[in-house]
């Protein structure tokens, strides 16, 4: 049996409200199984409890209830964090250090020896696109540069498991793409990547598996392709040259200057409709299968939760 890289069981956590008044239930029994290898997306709207979960996993805060295992071992022993590379949410770093000093500092906390540390620091700063910026103090870094140096320090110990809180935040489209590529590269190297995000497009592009958290509860989880296939898809056919045949009239979505588009729910219908249209002398312009996007799943999950 392969061990899960991260196993989270029934995690509960509350915070005191402002001025210690009231009680915020940040996590209401979260369960997660992150298998070794692959990219796992932890998706949820603002305030859903993503950062709280990650902070518990990395030992920064303590849960009220529940347990966490990293590669089969309880996370309460600090030494297991040797296997974790962590990027905190909007990284706050010592701004009096230079990029290079920062990465080296974190490397030395893993007990990496000097020579290896120098080489690895250089390699990583290069990898995240900070070549030539190593000697600048972080107080002069832009947000995107900070995010990059954050990634570099998360990779310093060559960990089997990477936990990244919003790795793409603060980056421009090119930067996001670079980070996506980097994450894919890390996956190829056999690492497990667990990252939180509310940018669904990013997640949809690279994740093997996702969990959606809303208001402290997991509302959906599973392999991305299964989640995307689960909901009913529809097909749009557009054509021109003929009037819409009467049997398809109720399927019309738009009709405009001789063009028409009809929407059909299942494949059999599509075959029939295409045959009819061609028989009648229509010209098929396009056939578009419409897949449910992660965004739609996400939005409907939130909607369901609201109605609860």
């Amino acid at each position, binding site marked *: 049996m392969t061990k899960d890289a991260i196993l989270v069981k029934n995690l509960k956590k509350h915070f005191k409200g402002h001025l210690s008044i009231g009680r915020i239930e940040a996590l209401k029994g979260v369960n997660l199984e992150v298998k070794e290898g692959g990219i796992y997306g932890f998706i949820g709207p603002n305030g859903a409890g993503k950062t709280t979960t990650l902070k518990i996993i990395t030992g*920064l805060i303590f849960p009220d209830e529940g347990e966490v295992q990293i590669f089969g071992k309880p996370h309460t022993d600090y030494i*297991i*964090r040797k296997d974790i590379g962590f990027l905190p949410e909007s990284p706050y770093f010592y701004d009096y250090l230079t990029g290079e000093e920062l990465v080296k500092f974190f490397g030395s*906390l893993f*007990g990496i020896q000097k020579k290896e540390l120098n080489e690895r620091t250089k390699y990583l700063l290069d990898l995240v696109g900070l070549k030539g910026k190593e000697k600048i103090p972080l107080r002069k870094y832009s947000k995107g540069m900070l995010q990059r140096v954050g990634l570099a*320090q998360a990779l310093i110990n060559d960990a089997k498991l990477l936990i990244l809180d919003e790795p793409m935040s603060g980056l421009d489209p090119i930067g996001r793409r670079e980070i996506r590529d980097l994450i894919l590269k890390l996956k190829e190297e056999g690492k497990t990547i667990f990252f939180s995000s509310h940018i669904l497009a990013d997640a949809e592009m690279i994740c093997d598996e996702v969990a959606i958290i809303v208001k402290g509860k997991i509302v959906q989880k599973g392999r991305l392709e299964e989640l995307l296939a689960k909901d009913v898809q529809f097909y749009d056919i557009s054509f021109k040259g003929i009037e819409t045949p009467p049997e398809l009239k109720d399927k019309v979505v738009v009709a405009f200057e001789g063009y028409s588009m009809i929407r059909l729910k299942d494949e059999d219908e599509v075959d029939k409709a295409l045959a009819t249209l061609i028989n009648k002398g229509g010209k098929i312009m396009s056939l578009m299968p419409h897949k449910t996007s992660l965004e739609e799943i996400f939005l409907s999950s939130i909607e369901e939760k609201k109605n609860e």
Partner: protein
Amino acid sequence: MSRFKLSCMQVIAIAKNTYKEAIRSKIFYVLMAFAIAMLGFAVILSFLTIGSQKRVILDLGLAGISFFSVMTSIFVGIGLIYLEIEKKTIYNVLSKPLPRASFIVGRYFGLMAVLGINLIAMLIILSIALLFFKGFTPMIFYAGLFIYLELAVITAIAIFFSSIASPVLSAICTLAFYLIGHTSSTFPEMLVPLLHNDIQKKIALFFFHILPDLSILNVSNLITYNIPIAPGFTIRGIIYAVLFSTLLIFAGCLFFKKRDLV
């Protein structure tokens, strides 16, 4: 690598980083400038006094060094843990494989290194001033050792409060501690006669004994007035300071261990 060796490396790394932080911050230079100004002031004042010029410089010089070192210790010390949480820089450190105690101990040693170097620099400046007025005595370095021991205790107090309270509260508590520490040795003489029965006196004396007593670490007077130093004085001071600081840091670690870093 054994856990112990890893911990040592981590403590050293954190101490070094604390050192860098201090020498790259402004407050450090401001306090240092004050200390030097104080020495200058001592020299000027010495011209105006009728008595021994040398003694005024020595006296005021040591007092100034002690005062500004203590201020550095308190005002840097109270932020040592708290500001890391406030600025959220601590998240990334404590998500690494290190026990939280290593963090506190590393921060402590880092500040002690800063204070040590700071102290040596000021003592050298004082020596130069004294040499100039032909009043140099190597005893100022002995006094320096005791100032350092006192700083060890004060820094431990500051870091203890810093790990459980806000900077303002920590500053107040640490200053109170410092003042009590300097006057507590006079409490029994002053206060006990005011009590009427023996049991009250015994209880009061017990409490006075557990108060911090920093007069144990005060040698400046002995040096200015050339009073011979009793054998065992040095050892007693070292043991007192080390035990006291260890205890406080240990307590700080205990409080910090289970704390949510939010």
